[in-house]
């Protein structure tokens, strides 16, 4: 037994193996955390200190030395916000501008410098050599939390946090640190002031969510990704039918991957007595694009609404400005996902879609919602608009995306259906399973959750062990990173 290597892998940063919730290393560390947490959770100071320290270690394991960048940024924002909160008038605005500059400056340097450089050099007609800048994991998520905290204090909607440890813990709390949900200080900081009560229902619900998340991420998303990756990497090599299956497959994969991660994050929070809110609400059941953005990555869309769309004027400055504001908000939302024109296109098209949806709702005065057929049509159009845009989100370039689309329309043949079902049995089965889970109405899902809680513990233990074994059976080799880690 190579214990030295085992300990090294658990405790030392390895760029090729970031610490993931669905890894062996996290299982070992999770046991340690829950064990220590049980001993300290009733005393506020030790509890916060312990979770803060572990969260920093967790970030070190995913991003190495960038933990210092995280610490530096959060200390700077803390000090500047404290200063800002003590002054009024114009100077207060300048301090906020300073905070926004610091946070967006750091984010811009690490995430967008190469993109801006590349485009600038292209404009002046010179060759650009990429700068050697690594993207710290989760920087987009914690940057948005830092901004929302400072802006809320500036607006007077939140009192500045005097306790540095509470503030730092809010920013770094490990379940939501690297891939969300983007938790608001207004809802999280008050939880730290109260006594933490671990009740049976929340602990059970938390573990149920962790299992759901593991199932979605490690079984559904990871297995589907094996086929999707092959097709997206070489679209010309597959028939139209196979390409279409990979496109639908990716729509399911990204939902299961991201919502699976947030299920695990929210579940861990609940097991420790914290509420991180919800981030997904069956988005593919949406009957309009507006509805979709109320159900998909809720913490990001509400952030964009509160800190971008409304300050831009929202819907208060006439029709044209409303549509323009929607477009700008979504365009920047796209840019938030990555420094690439394809993400900007993806966001911009969602902005156009939202504007068209608003115009349509106004023209029909929302009356069509009363008709079942219209709701079905709305669902079908929304789903396919979203799925169509996922092609650009996933493909490595516009060329690949158009190649995929061309392949679907130029070489589509239903004759591939039986062959596909025969050769990709498990892929088809998991797709059907994912759709079925997503189609379960929320009320029924709650009943499943309650039934789980009532189940004897030994049954839960068997289910958990079977789940872990299924994950081991299905995974291709190493654990797949979460898609949203890159954002």
């Amino acid at each position, binding site marked *: 037994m*190579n214990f030295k290597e085992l300990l090294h892998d658990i405790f030392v940063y390895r760029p090729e193996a970031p610490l993931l919730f669905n890894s062996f290393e996290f299982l*070992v560390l999770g046991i340690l955390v829950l064990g220590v947490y049980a001993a300290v959770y009733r005393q506020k100071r030790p509890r916060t200190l312990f979770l803060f320290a572990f969260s920093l270690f967790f970030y070190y394991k995913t991003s190495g030395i960038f933990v210092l960048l995280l610490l530096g940024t959060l200390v700077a924002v803390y000090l500047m916000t404290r200063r800002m909160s003590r002054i009024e008038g114009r100077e207060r605005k300048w301090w906020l501008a300073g905070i926004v500059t610091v946070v967006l400056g750091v984010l811009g340097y690490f995430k967008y410098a190469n993109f801006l450089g590349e485009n600038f050099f292209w404009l002046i007609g010179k060759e650009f050599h990429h700068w050697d800048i690594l993207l710290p994991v989760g920087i987009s998520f914690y940057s948005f939390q830092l901004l929302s905290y400072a802006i809320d204090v500036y607006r007077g909607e939140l009192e500045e946090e005097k306790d540095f440890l509470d503030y730092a813990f809010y920013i770094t709390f490990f379940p939501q640190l690297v891939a969300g949900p983007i938790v608001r200080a207004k809802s999280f900081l008050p939880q730290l002031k109260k006594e933490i009560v671990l009740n*049976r229902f929340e602990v059970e619900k938390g573990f149920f969510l962790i299992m759901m998340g593991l199932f979605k991420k490690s079984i559904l998303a990871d297995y589907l990704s094996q086929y999707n990756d092959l097709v997206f990497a*070489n679209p010309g090599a597959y028939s139209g039918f196979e390409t279409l299956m990979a496109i639908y497959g990716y729509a399911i994969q990204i939902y299961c991957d991201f919502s699976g991660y947030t299920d695990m994050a929210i579940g861990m929070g609940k097991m420790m007595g914290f509420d991180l809110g919800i981030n997904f609400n069956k988005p593919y059941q949406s009957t309009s694009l507006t509805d979709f953005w109320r159900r998909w990555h809720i913490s990001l869309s509400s952030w964009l609404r509160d800190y971008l769309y409304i300050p831009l004027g929202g819907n208060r400055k006439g029709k044209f400005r409303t549509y323009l504001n929607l477009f700008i908000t979504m365009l920047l939302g796209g840019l938030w996902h990555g420094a690439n024109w394809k993400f900007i296109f993806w966001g911009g098209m969602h902005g156009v879609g939202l504007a068209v949806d608003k115009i349509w709702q106004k023209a029909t005065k929302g009356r069509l919602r009363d008709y079942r057929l219209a709701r079905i049509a709305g669902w079908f159009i929304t789903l396919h608009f979203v799925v169509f845009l996922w092609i650009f989100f996933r493909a490595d370039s516009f060329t690949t995306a158009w190649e995929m689309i061309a392949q679907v329309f130029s070489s589509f043949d239903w004759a591939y259906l039986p062959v596909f079902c025969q050769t990709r049995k498990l892929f088809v089965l998991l797709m059907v399973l994912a759709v079925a889970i997503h189609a379960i109405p929320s009320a029924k899902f709650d009943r499943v959750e309650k039934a789980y809680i009532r189940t004897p513990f030994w049954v839960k233990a068997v289910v958990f062990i079977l789940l872990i074994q299924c994950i*081991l059976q299905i995974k291709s080799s190493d*654990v797949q990173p979460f898609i949203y880690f890159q954002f």
Partner: protein
Amino acid sequence: MAKNSQRRNGIPRPYWGYLALLIGSLVLFSSYALFFEDTSVDFDLKKMSVAKYAVDDTLCQDSLKIMDSLVAEAQQEDTTQSPTDSTGKVHFLLIGDSMNEYLRIRLNDYCIANDYDMYCVIWYGATTKQYGTSDTIAYFINEHKPTYVLLTIGSNELFVRDIIEKRTDYVKHIVKQLGRTPFVWVGPPNWKEDTGINEMIVTNVGKSRYFESKKLKYNRYKDGAHPTRESAAMWMDSIAVFLQNDALTPIEMTPPEKSYKKVPHTTILQMVRE
């Protein structure tokens, strides 16, 4: 209800239960990975990644030195049939695991450029155990009558303990199925030191029928194992050079001028859940 189930300083019973469950699962899965042998030929319960810690890399290096001397003794005599048909054309059978997904695209480019043809078989997740305990290879040889076989088996068993003791017979059975058909076994593109798969194969097939893929560097997909499309193409280019210059049965492999991105005829076999 909450109060009734609170135990030990206010912590509800399920919290301790789940903590015990996590510890129990860790012990259970680690023990299985570290101390239990494979259960059956047809179906194995996969093991937690902790199994890789059961192997000491330095021991692998030692075994490598011992195996080197054995390689020299491997059968090197060419008693195989011609690598071409009566018209001088090579018919490839590329058979193995998921690594063939991209290798086949580039090999097909070579076939187009050299006026050869090929047939591909992908058995996802397959190892020497599946191929060595079935007649799959013999079946496809009989079905497609290839004049040259390329085997890509081994990527799914890099970390099997005591592999030489356990799986040498399977490799022998695979070689037996090939009969007199010329072949090259393309070794796994290691992403970590293996437990002996490379040595086991080269010992049984000889250096001139073995392409040692692990000596190359690869860009890989996010699974950390499969080379990217571009990297797999370069991998195939290196194999082609080996086939032309170093293989026991050399064949001409003129590099294609472009990538045709065509998928050759392929049979996909059910994924092995090992």
